[in-house]
């Protein structure tokens, strides 16, 4: 049975494609983790490069498929008009192929140089000294350290990076175990955290907001749930937050909170977690100084609420199977006190 592509079928196929595209446009992901919702110059330049590439690529594709369809239609027509033999090579076809190749080459050259320009614009931070933050990747959480000129000023938090709006931020990336990759699509492309290397990435947030990122290099069981937040706030707010974070944790005020601190220090928590200002100084797990004011638990896995925190402490393996934190069977009163204590660490 010989049937070539008919005009009606081609229209139907085109309509179906448009419908699919419309559907896709409607089913978008959340805007706080998207490369198409740029909130800074890095991501912005890449987004413009993307749209340029997208429309160019679409044009190239449509032209190519149209050329194919036209060739098929012309051959059909010639056959129906009684052309017995196939045409031999002729100058026309050579010219056509050469034109196609030349056009492709031209498009590629334009794209290549545009890309080089974008690349060099993104390469180094602007001349102003950027804020430098050290990020160390662990299986499956992010250790974030703000260095300062004085040792007192240095503080460590986990899974959240606060940055001032409108200022360049330089991240120094290292890994404690396997290769991770930090990717906050609203702000910048990704960079690997390779053990044994220190890489840097810079970005700038121009709009205040909370941007979510995720690890983007397969790193083991809970690679899927190794998220982080970048919180961009006005410079004054950021300075206040940094100043507050340099302080050690507040001492417990009442008996329940005191009991909670005691549970923390004498149980298994202090073996892995540090709280500045107490004798818990282990670096094995994320620092819990300031956990009361963090937005998420488990590296972006759960919102930080009392109930979620209780569930996480009692059985983290149910939420992130394979994570390195063991379950903790605590007496209800102890758990209650511990939660109160942790919530007090703002």
């Amino acid at each position, binding site marked *: 049975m010989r049937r070539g592509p008919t005009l009606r079928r081609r229209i139907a196929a085109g309509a179906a494609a448009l419908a699919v595209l419309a559907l896709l446009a409607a089913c978008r992901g959340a805007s706080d983790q998207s490369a198409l919702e740029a909130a800074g110059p890095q991501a912005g330049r890449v987004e413009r490069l993307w749209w340029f590439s997208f429309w160019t690529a679409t044009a190239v594709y449509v032209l190519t498929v149209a050329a194919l369809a036209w060739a098929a239609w012309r051959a059909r027509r010639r056959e129906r008009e009684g052309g017995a033999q196939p045409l031999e090579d002729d100058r026309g076809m050579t010219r056509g192929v050469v034109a196609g190749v030349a056009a492709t080459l031209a498009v590629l050259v334009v794209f290549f140089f545009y890309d080089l320009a974008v690349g060099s614009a993104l390469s180094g931070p602007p001349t102003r000294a950027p804020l430098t933050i050290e990020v160390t990747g662990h299986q499956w959480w992010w250790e974030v350290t703000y260095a300062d000129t004085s040792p007192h000023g240095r503080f460590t938090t986990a899974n959240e990076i606060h940055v001032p709006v409108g200022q360049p931020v330089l991240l120094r990336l290292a890994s404690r175990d396997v290769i991770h990759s930090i990717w906050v699509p609203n702000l910048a492309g*990704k960079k690997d955290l390779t053990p044994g290397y220190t890489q840097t990435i810079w970005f700038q947030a121009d709009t205040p907001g909370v941007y979510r990122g995720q690890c983007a290099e397969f790193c083991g069981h809970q690679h899927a749930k190794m998220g982080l937040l970048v919180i961009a706030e006005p410079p004054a707010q950021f300075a206040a937050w940094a100043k507050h974070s340099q302080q050690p944790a507040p001492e417990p005020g009442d008996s329940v909170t005191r009991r909670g601190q005691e549970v923390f220090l004498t149980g298994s928590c202090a073996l892995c977690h540090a709280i500045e200002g107490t004798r818990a100084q282990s670096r094995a797990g994320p620092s819990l100084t300031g956990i009361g004011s963090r937005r998420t638990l488990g590296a972006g896995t759960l919102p930080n609420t009392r109930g979620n925190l209780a569930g996480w402490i009692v059985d983290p393996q149910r939420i992130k199977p394979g994570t390195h934190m063991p379950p903790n069977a605590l007496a209800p009163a102890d758990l209650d006190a511990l939660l109160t204590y942790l919530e007090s660490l703002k």
Partner: protein
Amino acid sequence: MTTSVLTTAPLPPDHARDAEEVAQLERTWRARRGLWGWLTTVDHKSIAIRYVATCMVFFLLAGANAALMRLQLARPENTFIGPDRYNQLFTVHGTGMMFLFAVPVMTAMALYLVPLMVGTRDLAYPRLNAFGYWVFLIGGVFLFVSLYLNMGPDTGWFSYVPLAGPEYAPGKRVDVWAQVVTFTEIAALVAAVEIIATVLKLRAPGMSLNRIPLYVWSVLVIAFMILFAMPTVAIASTLMLAMDRLVATHFFNRAEGGDPLLWQHLFWFFGHPEVYIMFIPGLGFVSAIIETFTGRRIFGYPVMVLSLFVTGFVAFGLWVHHMFAGPLPQLGQSFFTAASVFITIPTGTQIFCWIATIWSGRPRYTTAMLFALGFIVVFVIGGVTGVMLASVPFDLQVHDSYFVVAHFHYVILGGVVFPLFGAFYFWFPKMAGRMLSERLGKWHFWLLFIGTNVTFFPMHLLGLDGMPRRVYTYLPERGWGELNLLATVGSWFIAASVVVFLVNVLKSARGGAVAGANPWGAPSLEWATTSPPPSWNFTHTPVVESRSPLWEAGPAMPVATGLRTDRREFLVTTALDAIPDSRHEVPDESIWPLIMALAIGVTFIGAVFTPWAYVAGFTLASVAFGGWAFPRWSKAPPPPGRLDSSSPAREGA
């Protein structure tokens, strides 16, 4: 020099006319019966069909993995499959598809088609060919059995260290991966050697280089690519990674002077050419199909051949584009951007030449032709996203996200699977003597076409919206649920298309319409013999006088007689102009390739568990090699040109 007689033979072959010669050839080339015959055969066609079938089994198994993965990802926070099992599934999906399906099925088709297309009786080294298949089978079975034993590798198909290193990958899973890679490398290297030797030295008289079919050029290019690319990953996996894990060497241990980045370089130096090794034979398939079904030679033959070589060559200069997020200097990265962008030129040239061929030809839209056209429509989408990914800033946004997953599935499905299915519909009549159903074929094509697009197009958007690769689940607040569900539904279309294809093959293998020698009216030499071909391929050696011999031949084609029929031999010709040069004895059936493959199997499977396996395996391999190469005394052959009726002489090696 041999004396041959130039004469003509009828097309299609007339066995009644040549009955006596055919009977003698039958006696000489007859395969043995029963299990022993099945294990010892060296007939390239039996081995290749077995090889293709095995690859399709692995395709189904790896595809089943993908179906399970898509079910898990259909909803956020789904609990169908846990992280440990999911990691094994996606690793074995990738490893199985890349190492056990995509490359081997292309080499297997080449092992079937190349001797027929160049007009000779068998591949250059028939026993080596058998060995290559057995090694491949052992490796593939080892991988999937390991998966079902909970020992399947779980660190991704490219197995980055340190995650796959001794500290972070407990157990034997990654060791299994490292050794499976070796089996497939050996099989691929064997196929490469076979193709190069056959194409360069065994072509039919008159088939000078400028008359070689485009498909044969494509597999010659990948054979050379295999020679340069495969050893890298074999060394990196079997030697360096396995040794790091088993005997505490420090190749990738930064603390002791090694480097995890070394693994990435070694792997991707292989890994990028690997995807072109899969893709370039697809280009060859498309050329053969379009040529036949437009009724004219492909436009621009020299440019087509040059494009194949340029693609193959430049493919070795792209590998760092997989590592743009790593600790590499920016200037170096720009070179790889340039290479990655401009490698589209040769492939684009080929597409324009095909369009020109269709424009000036008389197209017939059989299923094979639909797949060839579908290749263009699907592959170009993957091609343009590939150019986007060549850009460092853009790649840094979408690297290791679902955008990349969408890209490579488009290029693999479009560039490998579509041409492969087209090739199946095209050459199944030759292999089995029966036609596949065109009606089921159209269903197959449309289901696959729709399934491919519905499954993978949404993934572009998922990647741009922040969804990373290799995640076993995702949070509901991300908003990725609808597109993932759509992709899962699309995967059911793909599965359905494969089912339709299997039904088609099973029904047609016995009950399809009987195919003659040349049901499609194709121009190349494999259609000059019966369907399926006899063990000796061609009763008379074809003589080639043009690029499309069967179209110029008319009712009879020129042949050369003079090869002996009382012993197995083929004609060796010169490399450039295919002038007959000498004749060469073809070895007959042997069990030693299987024993050698088993020795290799013992070595590398045992090496997962103990280094002593190398000692045991080396010993066994030496014994097997001795048996394989053991010289056998032969009688002096009678002068050429006279048929000797006594028992055939056998020579060693």
